[in-house]
């Protein structure tokens, strides 16, 4: 199978300055030399504690952030330097209530983003209608997003992430704030994307979800990979992935 994401010894540091008079420079190594590969059609999990570097990794892969070392390649192109060839073919969803225009309706949001993704006029309305149905927002599509519940905004985000029929979809904690029905809907969407041959890279703190969905995963801690493999491999002798995960994290913090 073709490799669509290739991360080689990627690093990212953040420099922050604090203090008013005596400016102190602090360097945070958010991602500290990680490597992994994702093949086309896989559902790939990125796991780790808060602050482990998951979001930072996704930002480097989605051309939002430059690595300070190593390389990130998506669809064969460098995410820093060849981003123009990557951007139309991928999309991403960040969990929570960010990433939508709250003073516009769901339909207007999707129309606007289909323009920004340069979709042909004739195709826009058809695709928007289909996606609105997919995320179950058709009924409220013409209300302003600011009147939506948290989960509805989340579903609108998912819809937005599908607007360009992306080959790879990056999802950062996509089920945060979704009700059980919404979370299952999202899992169904993810499985359907896989059936269509698309690739999904996702982060989540819900390990049952990982067991259910992911073909392979890496666990990162403080910017470094501490485990990798299929859910079964990582589970090893433990009953659940959660038990194995907790042991792994305890192991490295001891």
């Amino acid at each position, binding site marked *: 199978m073709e490799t669509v994401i290739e991360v080689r010894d990627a690093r990212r540091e953040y420099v922050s300055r604090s203090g008013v008079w005596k400016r102190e420079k602090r360097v945070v190594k958010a991602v500290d030399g990680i490597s992994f590969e994702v093949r086309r059609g896989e559902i790939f999990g990125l796991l780790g504690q808060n602050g482990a570097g998951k979001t930072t990794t996704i930002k480097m892969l989605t051309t939002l952030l430059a690595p300070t070392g190593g390389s990130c390649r998506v669809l064969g192109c460098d995410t820093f330097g060849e981003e123009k060839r990557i951007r139309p073919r991928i999309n991403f969803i960040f969990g929570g209530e960010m*990433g939508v225009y709250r*003073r516009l309706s769901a339909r207007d949001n999707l129309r606007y983003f289909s*323009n*920004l993704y340069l979709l042909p006029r004739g195709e826009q309305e058809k695709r928007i209608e289909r996606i609105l149905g997919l995320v179950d927002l058709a009924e409220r599509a013409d209300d302003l997003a600011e009147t939506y519940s948290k989960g509805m905004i989340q579903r609108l985000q998912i819809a*937005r992430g599908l607007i360009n029929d992306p080959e790879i979809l990056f999802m950062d904690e996509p089920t945060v704030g979704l009700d059980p029905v919404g979370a299952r809907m999202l899992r169904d969407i993810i499985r359907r994307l896989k059936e269509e041959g698309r690739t999904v890279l996702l982060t989540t703190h819900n390990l049952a979800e990982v067991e259910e969905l992911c073909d392979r995963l890496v666990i990162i801690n403080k910017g470094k990979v501490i485990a990798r493999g299929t859910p079964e491999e990582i589970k090893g002798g433990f009953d659940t992935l959660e038990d194995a995960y907790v042991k792994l994290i305890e192991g490295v913090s001891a």
Partner: protein
Amino acid sequence: MSLAVLLATMRVQMKQSFARPMFRFCLIANPILNTVLLYEMYRGSGEESFMAYVVLGAGLMGLWSCICFSSAGDINRERYSGTLALIFVAPASFPTIILGKIIGNTLLSLLTLGISLVTAAVLFRTPLMLESPLYFLFALLAAVAAFVVISSVVACLLTLSRKTELYMNCIEIPIILLCGFVFPVSVLPAAVRAVSYALSPTYAVELLRMSVWGVEEPAAFWQKLGILLGLTALYAVLSALLYRRIDRRVRVAATLEVA
């Protein structure tokens, strides 16, 4: 550069700006209050042309505040709502999107001139004269171009640094004073005037005022218009240079998002 993207962004921007109470305040209440204030200030001064200083002054002040608080503030609003990253990596070019936002806001902000005109006409019943309407139209178009270009420089700086909003609040009033929105630049000390004449809005304001009074020497008008367009072109080149560097800079400095 895609016209569809430009137009879609203008539409979306106008919808969103108008939905914001702060923007509506700047757009509607601000010019009314300023018109009243300026009228009271000019009433006993012997200045006859209320149109030139009161209506135009209040209108321009409103236009400029809308630009300061919206074109500039919008970048931070998008940053905090997580959409800045989205428009930044969309296949449509980022400068086109920003330009669409700015043109949308500026067109909407032009309402301030009309509101200030109506306020003066209704409240004070003074004769308001516009002697050279055609010249006024040219001056207005050039003024809009100048403001659009300035906003685009500001928007670019804001994308690069989160602190720009602070600076923006600091320059709002100085520009009003330096560029002679509400009084002629000639009353300023010579050293300050040198700064005034490096700023394109100064010429825009003088051109507008000339056409209100009536253009007696067309040559002087065209000359000033030429300077204004030249300065605007210069700012535009600067802006284009900035935008060429932004794509890499922003991703190295990680300023697209708040967290």
